[in-house]
């Protein structure tokens, strides 16, 4: 059995009276590529944001390396440096160049030397095909390029797991492919990833597990073949049918 990295237990999140996540249980093993699918508003983003503590869970536990990080005593920023996140809106630092974006975290958070940080940044920028653009600023890049830099920035922190929240939803169709290709590559290299996505082909062909969320609960999960080929729950069938029709 492969090593367990994250274990989410009885996770709930309320926004005021609105319960967005309801008693979620789920585990992430090393090397997993988990696609999280589901209708808009089903709580997918909230789940990811709770997992890296950008939202404070209302109840429940998140276990990482023998520690419950949902406990307030745990320093959130320390834990976050092990969990990368790639956002729909890129969130590159606008005041820094591409290279600086990939260096600043390594220098300030990981306290690496300038030389080492630069080498690591260059390695990952090269990996996502953005090495020629190191001197550009975010505003000078296309959406797909920005997202690839954002992935390199996250990778440069050498995270144990990488969270993606609809990384291609803000992109023009012709740029979706370049970002998905990078993600597919990472999955093949054994990076542990959690991907909220509407790209069903990615979920089906690249992920090792598919999680279908509906109305704040994990309605169904399993291998892509099972979930797409032989869904058990009526909600899953309806959701997938809706997708096929569009």
């Amino acid at each position, binding site marked *: 059995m492969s090593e367990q990295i994250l274990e989410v237990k009885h996770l709930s999140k309320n926004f005021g009276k609105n319960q967005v996540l309801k008693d979620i249980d789920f585990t992430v093993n090393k090397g997993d590529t988990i696609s999280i699918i589901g209708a808009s508003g089903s709580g997918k983003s909230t789940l990811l944001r709770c997992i890296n503590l950008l939202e404070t869970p209302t109840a429940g536990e998140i276990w990482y390396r023998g520690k419950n990080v949902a406990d307030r005593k745990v320093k959130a920023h320390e834990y976050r440096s092990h969990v990368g996140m790639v956002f729909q809106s890129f969130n590159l630092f606008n005041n820094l*160049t591409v290279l600086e974006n990939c260096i600043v975290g390594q220098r300030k958070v990981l306290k690496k030397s300038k030389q080492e940080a630069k080498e690591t940044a260059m390695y990952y920028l090269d990996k996502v095909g953005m090495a020629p653009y190191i001197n550009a600023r975010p505003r000078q890049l296309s959406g797909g390029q920005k997202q690839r830099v954002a992935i390199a920035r996250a990778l440069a922190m050498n995270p144990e797991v990488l969270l993606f929240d609809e990384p291609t939803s803000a992109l023009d169709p012709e740029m979706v492919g370049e970002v998905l290709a990078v993600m597919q590559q990472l999955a093949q290299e054994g990076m542990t990833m959690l991907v909220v996505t509407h790209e069903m082909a990615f979920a089906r062909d690249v992920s090792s597990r598919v999680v279908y969320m509906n109305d704040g609960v994990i309605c169904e999960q399993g291998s892509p073949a099972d979930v797409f080929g032989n869904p058990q729950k009526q909600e899953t069938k309806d959701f997938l049918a809706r997708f096929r029709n569009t």
Partner: protein
Amino acid sequence: MDKLIKLFEDVARLWSKYSSFYLDGMKNTLILALVATAIGCVIGLVCGVLNTIPYSKNDNIIKRFFLALIRVLVRIYVEVFRGTPMVLQAVFIFYGLPYFTDNAMRFDDLWTAAILIVSINTGAYMAESVRGGIISIDPGQTEGAKAIGMTHVQTMTNVILPQALRNIMPQIGNNFIINVKDTSVMFIIGFTEFFAFHRYITGVNMLYFPSAAIEMIGYLTMTLLASFLLRWVEKLMDGSSSYELVQVDSLTMSAGNYSHPGKPFAEQNKEKKHLFRGRKRGEQDE
């Protein structure tokens, strides 16, 4: 025409006799405005940063109490010093301090007094500008920084403040220009800035209008210079508007033989075709 010639003659006469005074006044004005604007910015920065430290219901009561207290104190400071004339603040502080401390505390040096007063005044304006500058930065920037493990302080110093400062540069410049002009009220405590020399010189020779003309030109020169410098600083902060593509080969070389698992992307691309290259949205599910 005659009048103009006469004006020129008077101005020339004044200048030849008092140019060192006028220049000295301009120097004092510029130094006072520059130093006070700089200190005011620091005050504003500190207030703005303290004012925007986030806290939530989950934080402990002491932290919440102190942060709330800070916000109230900054609020009062801003309202008081923004809401009263600087000339009055000058009198109030300059004479108030010795009055209340039985001369134990007083200003032996006019420079200290003038800088203090103008700084506090500028700080009140800057506190609001900085706060506005900070909260106007896209929350995504903070989330991006948090997501790579930065603390609030690291996020502020590396990501938010550089952007906020860039955005409030025009206001900093505005404050500087206002200070160049408004320091003229410092004559009230006897500080000899540019305008104070006008009062002194015309008191001797009654050449009010020619001296005023010199003052007008002097102030305008200083403020125009300030505007020009400001634009230049803004351009500098923006960085170059274009970028150069870097040759990848030379860079992989300079990146040395850092050993990582897996091959760089470029190599792998040659070997295999990607499932998703060029696939369009809407085609995912055939």
